[in-house]
């Protein structure tokens, strides 16, 4: 367990360092954008106003409010201080709404949509990949080209195709939103059902794009493992093939767990697009709005939250991986 603690501390340290850098990037990049957001706000407020001294007053007021007239370093420390206190500032585009408020309402949707979908896609992909590796013949010959092709349909393409087939043509599922257009969120079965129904298309479009890549990876890993010495040995010890396949899957799947950790970031990107296409009220959509409204605090916060989510997911997955794979523990205690 000592070795594992070291592993844990190591990963935790890395998490903190990465978070810090992500923090800096998140702060700087949106601020490199062209245009002056404060000017944009004041301009909007002052639409139809024809005296320019009033405008200057407005501008000054808002510049003070958002701190955009302070030195960038000071802004940065202010930003850190605020974020530590859970305050992401005030949104520019939805002024005077606090960013935290905007994010709070969308982050849960994203978490509930993306993580189950990504994990589910991962599980299905791995199962299919393992089956393909094991059965070889027909299944493999049919399944592999299909998985490769499906995994190459871009995330938005998959989303659009599902939308057209199941939403527009078959009308099985609604095409946008997180719950029924005629519902007010409450804890009622009707609402929950509506949420589940609205959940389907974005969920499956994320799952469908996640499957292919995972299946291909798992197939390779499984073939590699099937050739391992322990397989031969186990066979010669009279153990049933099915049981051996169990060993192989487990062992092949373990490296796939790290694969999952590393690809969560990539998948979240695709999932954001899926959210946008299905107008799912998650972070992807919020981010898009932030970008269009040139809303630094919002963009910073959304990208930070997404990055944090990915980092945290990575961290959790790696910690779990360390727990379930004895090889890691052994490697650490050396």
């Amino acid at each position, binding site marked *: 367990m000592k070795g594992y603690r070291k592993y844990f501390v190591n990963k935790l340290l890395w998490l903190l360092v990465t978070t810090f850098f992500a923090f800096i990037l998140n702060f700087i990049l949106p601020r490199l954008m*062209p*245009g*002056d957001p404060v*000017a*944009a706000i004041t*301009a*909007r*407020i*002052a*639409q*139809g*106003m*024809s*005296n320019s001294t*009033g*405008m200057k*007053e407005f501008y000054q*007021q808002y510049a003070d409010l958002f701190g955009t007239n302070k030195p960038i370093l000071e802004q940065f420390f202010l930003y850190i201080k605020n974020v530590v206190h859970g305050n992401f500032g005030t949104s520019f585009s*939805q*002024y*005077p*709404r606090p960013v935290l408020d*905007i994010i*709070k*309402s969308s982050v*849960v*949707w994203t978490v*509930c949509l993306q993580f*189950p979908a990504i*994990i*589910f896609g991962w599980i299905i992909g791995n*199962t299919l990949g393992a089956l393909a590796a094991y059965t070889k013949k027909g299944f493999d010959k049919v399944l592999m080209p299909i998985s490769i092709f499906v995994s190459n349909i871009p995330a938005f393409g998959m989303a659009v195709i599902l939308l057209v087939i199941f*939403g*527009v043509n078959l*009308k099985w599922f609604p*095409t*946008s*939103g*997180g*719950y*029924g*257009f*005629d*519902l*007010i*969120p*409450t*804890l009622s079965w*009707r*609402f*929950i059902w509506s949420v*589940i129904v609205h959940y389907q298309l974005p969920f499956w479009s994320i799952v469908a794009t996640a499957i292919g890549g995972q299946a291909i990876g798992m197939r390779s890993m499984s073939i590699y493992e099937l050739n391992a010495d322990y397989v031969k040995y186990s066979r010669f010890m009279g153990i049933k093939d099915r049981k051996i*396949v*169990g060993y192989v*899957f487990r062992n092949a799947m373990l490296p796939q767990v790290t694969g999952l950790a590393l690809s969560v970031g990539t998948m979240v990107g695709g999932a954001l697009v899926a959210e946008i296409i299905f*107008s799912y009220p998650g972070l992807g959509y919020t981010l*898009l*709005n932030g970008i*269009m409204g*040139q809303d630094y605090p919002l963009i910073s916060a959304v990208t930070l939250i997404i990055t944090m989510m990915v980092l945290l997911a990575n961290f959790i997955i790696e910690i779990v991986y360390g727990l379930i794979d004895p090889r890691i523990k052994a490697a650490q205690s050396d």
Partner: protein
Amino acid sequence: MRKNILFLLSIFIIAGVVLAACQPAAETTTEEPTAETAVEEPVAENPADIAASLPRDETLYFNGQQWGSVVCWNPYSSNCNNAMALAQQDNARVTMFETPYLYNMLDGKVYPLLADGDFAWDAGMTAITFKINAAAHWSDGTPVTAEDVAYTWATHVKYNTQFGAANKDYIDTIEAVDASTVLVKAVLGDDGKAINPLLVQAYLSSNYVIQKAWTEKLEARTDGDAAALMADVAEDVVFSGPYYKFFTDDTKVVMVRDDNYWGQDTSMFGKLPVPTYLAHVIYKDNAAGTTALQAGEVDVSQQFNSNVQDLWLKDNLPISTYLADAPYNIGASLPTAYYNMASYGLDQVAVRKAIAMAVDYNTIISNAMTNQSATFTQVPRSLMNPTPGEQALFDHDAVADLQWAGSDIEGANQLLDDAGIVDADGDGWREYNGQNLHYIATCPNGWSDWQAAIEVVAAAGKEIGIDITTNYPEWSVYQTVVTNWPLPETGYDILMMWSDGAGPTQPWGRIRHLISSEFAQTTNNWNGNWGGYSNADADALIQAIPTMSDAAELKAAYTELVTIYLTDVPSFTLMYRPQSFHTVNESVWTNFPHEGDGTNPAVPPLDLTDGWSIAGLYNLTLVK
């Protein structure tokens, strides 16, 4: 293997449970609808009973108005992004707050709302008097008084709100003569008359009356700080209109009817508006909105639905627009391409006019607007909306020679050749004083119909040897650049912006914004004339028109202005666009305003929320 399957199964189940468990949890963290509805008098039904769903046959659904989440309910703020409740403009939105008068864009007249009877100018044209309807009362039961009107104005001025700043050059004071009589004093010119009576009048139909008691509460709360006052969320605001906030989140806005609304008094509508709820689902984009409209989840669509006719011709849906055929809606705004007068060569009328003549407007109208605009052969270009009222304001024959319908490559080439602007060096592009004519045409990114239109403009340039390329900055950048003179040296040679819609000051207001030099070359200019055009004759006419009362005199003045405009071509209209798109789905509600629907005065196609179109809400019936 069995163990594996069980493992998988358990994962599925867990995923399902997580899914089911976390969604409602999401909501409890975001909004507490029941708590917030209790601000005003309790709703007839217990909110919990209907909270789960809005009864379809009591709810009128909109789309195309609200984009993004609602920020606040504060009528002093212009930043609330609250399209269902707040819009103080020519056709003010009167669902929650009310103006003294309602403008009807169809007949150009105003009708009293909070006011009782018509307003009256005094003899010297210095002040307006009107009375407040005795029946009008606030949502807290107190009557609406002249003092409220006066205090609203005083507050606008005191805190320099947008509405105060926009009007204080024309309105001097607003006073309460007695509890029900309001006196609006205009700013007077040297001649002792109101300098702009049109704008003074317009205030009455475009600005809300806000309760004095609540305003004082707000002032106390914000401690006299202007920014704080305008940034207040105002969840507790007192209103006089028929609807108020029921529920909002990132995906929808719902307003509920106030069954104590004063308008059911016989002196006003005599009844309550029909739908109990007005709901607006927030769609991500037009595509999502169209889908919802198709699915019958939207009753009134205010967004641009491309190829709208397909909805009934191909999909056989019970959907219709105000007009039966193209352009389907009443054009009431002129999206316009402005020339940057400071750009090289664009100071030449010939260049400006040649480009404008070469543009293929039919393609713009059919491709960008999918024919939802009258063509320039149907309504020849001028400064007027294609409504009969405005069209009648100028002498068509007098300007016929100056008008162009587009695609006139030959004419444009001729014009340029005559002006000596030719391609001397043979590289395919014309030069002016030895320099190639190269322009960048710009409009905001993502404004699809404008972008499509700008593409056609660029194509036209190429036809006549002027190199026009396109550029689409983000709106946030675009607006900052366009509203601040000087424009950048490159990138903004031809820029597309809107023009005024329909309203009580039109077409005068539109013409002023298009060509008056008072806006030319200014910063923070949200009014118009972004290209920096100036013409003394036009300025003089614009200044004179508000005080003219003789019809013939007016017609002459307007004809003169159109002539100047078509001769100088400081900008050119690319299409006609309706004040608001108005497409309705009659699967639940019917009796929406349509051309020739027999209403008197006719209800304009403005979503049943703006100006006189609110009257349409009282006519709705359910489909049998």
